[in-house]
């Protein structure tokens, strides 16, 4: 605490190394087990679950030439990531400010809360049919559905963030001469920042979940589309490979958010 630079740095790096070793210790045996069960003992039939070799083959196929299901891996991953980021941005851009507003102003809360309560219980995926009717199979429909899914956690958490701000801090800002705008920029937003980031993490997860589901139902491109085509082709290797990439992209974006959070909230830790 008193010497954050001197003492904490080496401790953190050895901690990271140790955690990496633990992660290896968990993953390597699983990979070995997977190889043994599918390719040595043949306990699991290749029709149900692909062997490592099947997955490698699928990986080779989708990264070359015309790829698979209408594009190469890079193109499919880019398509899905792009939609997730756009849907996420729209959802956070509307949800977080609305949450802040509802947390701050009783009047805004009274006005918006009924509509919110009505829309909230509708599962985001239930919007897919309407979205397809309105926007077709293109990008617009997916962004629309992601918006509904990712909007809710962004709103609720920023709302809670404002509500949890110590009222004494608001009083302190007022007695030291803060205007309404200064109250928002110096107290409200930084004060709810930790909760806003919790909302962003949940929104990011919701965005990926929803996108893949939407692409399964109706898309001409993207990782979800790869999954459904591979399923129709009875191609387990490709199914698993596409799933792995959904996992990788989701994890990368969550990690990016965590890095952003550490920069945005330097006072914590």
């Amino acid at each position, binding site marked *: *605490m*008193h010497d*954050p630079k001197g003492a904490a740095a080496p401790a953190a790096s050895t901690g990271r190394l140790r955690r990496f070793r633990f992660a290896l210790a968990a993953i390597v045996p699983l990979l070995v087990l997977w190889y043994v069960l599918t390719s040595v003992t043949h306990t699991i039939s290749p029709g149900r679950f692909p062997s490592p070799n099947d997955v490698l083959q699928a990986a080779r196929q989708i990264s070359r030439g015309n790829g698979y299901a209408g594009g190469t891996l890079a193109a499919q991953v880019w398509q899905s990531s792009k939609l997730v980021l756009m849907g996420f941005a729209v959802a956070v851009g509307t949800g977080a400010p609305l949450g802040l507003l509802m947390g701050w102003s009783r009047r805004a809360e009274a006005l918006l809360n009924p509509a919110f309560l009505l829309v909230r219980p509708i599962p985001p995926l239930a919007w897919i049919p309407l979205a397809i009717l309105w926007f077709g199979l293109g990008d617009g429909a997916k962004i629309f559905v992601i918006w509904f899914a990712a909007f809710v956690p962004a709103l609720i958490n920023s709302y809670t963030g404002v509500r949890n701000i*110590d009222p*004494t*801090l608001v*009083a*302190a*800002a*007022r*007695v*030291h*001469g*803060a*205007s309404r705008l*200064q109250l928002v920029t*110096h*107290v409200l937003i*930084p*004060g709810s*920042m930790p909760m806003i980031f919790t909302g962003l993490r949940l929104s990011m997860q919701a965005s990926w979940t929803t996108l893949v589901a939407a692409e399964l139902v109706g898309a001409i491109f993207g990782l979800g589309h790869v999954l459904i085509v591979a399923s129709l082709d009875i191609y387990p290797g490709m199914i698993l490979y596409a799933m792995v990439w959904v996992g990788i992209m989701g994890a990368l974006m969550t990690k990016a958010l965590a890095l952003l959070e550490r920069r945005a*909230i*330097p*006072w914590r830790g």
Partner: protein
Amino acid sequence: MFTNVKRSFRRRDQEVLALDDVSFEVGEKEFVAIVGPSGCGKTTLLRMAAGLDFPTSGSVRVGDREVSGPGPDRAVVFQQFALFPWKTVEENIAFGLRCRGIDADARSRIVASYVELMGLQGYERAYPQQLSGGMQQRVAIARSYALDPDVLLMDEPFGALDAQTRVVMQEELIKLCRVNPRTALFITHSVEEAVYLADRVVVLTRRPGRIREILDIASVRRREGWDTYERIEEVMDLESFVHLRTRIWRLLRERQEDAAPAGIAVKSA
């Protein structure tokens, strides 16, 4: 400053009187402490002076103006410090100056002088949670003093500190007030603290808070030469100090026994 102030709250359809007919005045550069049992409305009195709360009837004036909200002529030090966790020590002290639109150069000059005065050198860029309670309260006092207010309002500023730190802070506050005298209203539940720091002590009764008595400490302090002693324990050993302290204790206790049945009745209703 306070004339015939009454303040009542509605609690579950019942009118609860918190303060009843409180009138007193704080002179220019005078240090007045308010003591009373918890729930007697002493914090409410201070909040009214700060413009964060308003009397149900009667009036609160500062100078010749009725208090209608927080103002640049009054600064508050809160019991829980109420520092902004997301701002560094420097930024916290500069907050009020920034709200008043004082330019960066003048701001950093003023901040530097208070950092030095309060012994905060070396901690300018630390965040409040990296500091001890005593250090945090120094920052809060600096933040209020930096505004150069006419009136300093302190709500049990040392209540959250451990006993040793508390004594140090009391001695420092006395020194600060000698160097830099302000009109001060100081809320405390510590009788010793009130007698040691104040020119006059206002003793309040249990709810509804009424003025029991106002004691003149300044004349005793001058007559007995309290200010010639460096340390608080030396002053506290003086017969004149013990005498005043015992008198206030008696005033508080008498009233408590009278009012106890009424207090219970309010709670059970």
